[in-house]
């Protein structure tokens, strides 16, 4: 299939509807740290995946890069520029972790810190793994943020991670940073807060519906559209920067 030139340049106005091919470009594609090239294609750097599956593949890829690049593990994550973070994966800065360590040292309770640290390592590893494997909760959450036309549901955003079985990620037994000392028995985050240990009921309820939306769900309700969205859909062309993130209503599409 012919590759779309506009998509290659970073933006194609037709998105999903484009007749040409939009191959997925990972957000961190390429090892080259060429500053100039990077800046000249700012949109392409984030990748504008034109399909839901491409987005999921992109996220899975990013999780892999994250695990292997020795990047700071306790960070939030957003799949696309300018979008909110995926709920459930929250920031923990190096200073906060270090402050815990120093507090434990002063109070002479080194085990408290180790326990805290190991629990966090396991918790974040588990969450990255579930993002990598694209859990059902994540599949229902994603359309809401990316504005893909797959499903107009608004699932409770409280738990993307739902209830997880014991971490399936093939994590090495050693330190998360690939260092010398092995962590003294990294425990799976069984009790890591009710939100992720047992899975929030709202999210589970929302996940009960089919992840791949039936056609009836592909349209928005009129009440879900903002004034700006309505204007955009009414216009002959979308304005850059105001492209609606939700699908049009059924009425708008009726011929």
């Amino acid at each position: 299939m012919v590759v779309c030139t506009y998509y290659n340049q970073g933006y194609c106005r037709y998105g999903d509807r484009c007749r040409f091919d939009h191959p997925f470009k990972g957000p961190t594609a390429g090892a080259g740290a060429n500053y100039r090239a990077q800046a000249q294609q700012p949109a392409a750097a984030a990748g504008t995946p034109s399909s839901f599956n491409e987005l999921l593949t992109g996220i899975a890829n990013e999780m892999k890069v994250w695990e292997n690049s020795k990047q700071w593990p306790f960070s939030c994550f957003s799949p696309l520029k300018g979008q909110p973070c995926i709920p459930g994966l929250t920031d923990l800065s190096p200073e906060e972790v270090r402050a815990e360590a120093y507090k434990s040292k002063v109070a002479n309770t080194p085990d408290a810190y180790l326990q805290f640290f190991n629990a966090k390592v396991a918790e974040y590893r588990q969450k990255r793994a579930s993002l990598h494997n694209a859990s059902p909760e994540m599949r229902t959450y994603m359309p809401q943020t990316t504005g893909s036309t797959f499903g107009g549901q608004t699932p409770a955003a409280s738990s993307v991670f739902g209830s997880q079985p014991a971490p399936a990620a093939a994590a090495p037994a050693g330190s998360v940073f690939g260092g010398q000392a092995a962590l003294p028995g990294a425990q799976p985050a069984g009790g890591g807060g009710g939100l992720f240990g047992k899975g929030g009921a709202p999210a589970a309820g929302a996940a009960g519906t089919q992840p791949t939306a039936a056609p009836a769900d592909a349209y928005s309700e009129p009440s879900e559209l903002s004034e700006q969205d309505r204007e955009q859909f009414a216009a002959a062309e979308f304005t850059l920067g105001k492209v609606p993130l939700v699908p049009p209503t059924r009425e708008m599409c009726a011929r």
Partner: protein
Amino acid sequence: MTMFGTGGLGASSSVFGQTAAASTANPMKDIEVVSPPDDSVSCLEFSPPAVQQTFLVAGSWDNNVRCWEVDQNSGKTQPKAQQTMGGPVLDVAWADDGTKVFMSGCDNTVRCWDLASNQTVQVAQHDAPVKTVHWVKAPNYTCIMTGSWDKTLKFWDTRSPNPMMSIALPERAYCADVDYPMAVVSTANRGIIVYQLEGQPQQFKTQESSLRYQHRCISIFRDKMNRPTGYAIGSVEGRVAIQYVNPANPKDNFTFKCHRSNGTNQGYQDIFSVNDIRFHPVHGTLATVGSDGRFSFWDKDARTKLKTSEAMEQSITKCAFNHTGQIFAYAVSYDWSKGHEFYTPTKKNYIFLHPCFEELKPRPKT
């Protein structure tokens, strides 16, 4: 063309008379500040223009704030004084007249250090460690702005024990910068809030982040008319975003990758945190320092890299420019980016002074 590899001080017309010997601890042959802190450096600031001599102040995880006098010509440093807080120090700020230094830390307080009398007094209190402290000098008021992990941003007239204003933040404050009349705070989970300080501090707008991982550092830059107009943010993912508060064109905002190694680990790059970003006070170009132990200079308008240093033995945690833009100071100490296992308390912490005026000149327009 890169300046890299032309030899430490030799390339630029040396501000300093002496040259250091290159070693693995000091690969750039920079001036080493004497009597460095005993633990990681968390904050680093030069004295403001109001003070004739040059002073450097550094806060550390050893609970101390140290002050050195720096000789502008020789680069020689002399320890002047030091103060202690009730816990690790997280940030320092100078008053604009250069008579006081504010220090904030893990003991949830902010203290004011009067340099003349060498006394400190507590001036602010939060419910959690105070991560940022900045001096605000407005025509009709002066105060300090403190950001804390207790999710509040407070403004204090230092004469009163109660804040003159307290603003709730969406999340814990991680980094902030002030350049009157603009202030910007970045919180956990990639929050960015811009404040307008004229009249009285008020929230101006929240902005979306072009970065997709944890924010680490933020620094305001000015436009050609010398007015604050935007900010640079560094993240843990070896990336910096340049964002304008009111971009004329969406393409004005951009991001660039930095502080990454070549992909030698099964093709995966090592991705390091950007620990600090500072703009050169004269040229408007910027410096970034990272967990990889390197510093880099960049020209954001030409969108090019100017220079990258050799790698230090440990990460670089903080950097600072003196007000004339002649000296670039950077602190080499462990930033906890790999957890406690890579912490070696006995390893020496360094602060280096690098003559930088020539190296940070903007790339000429071709």
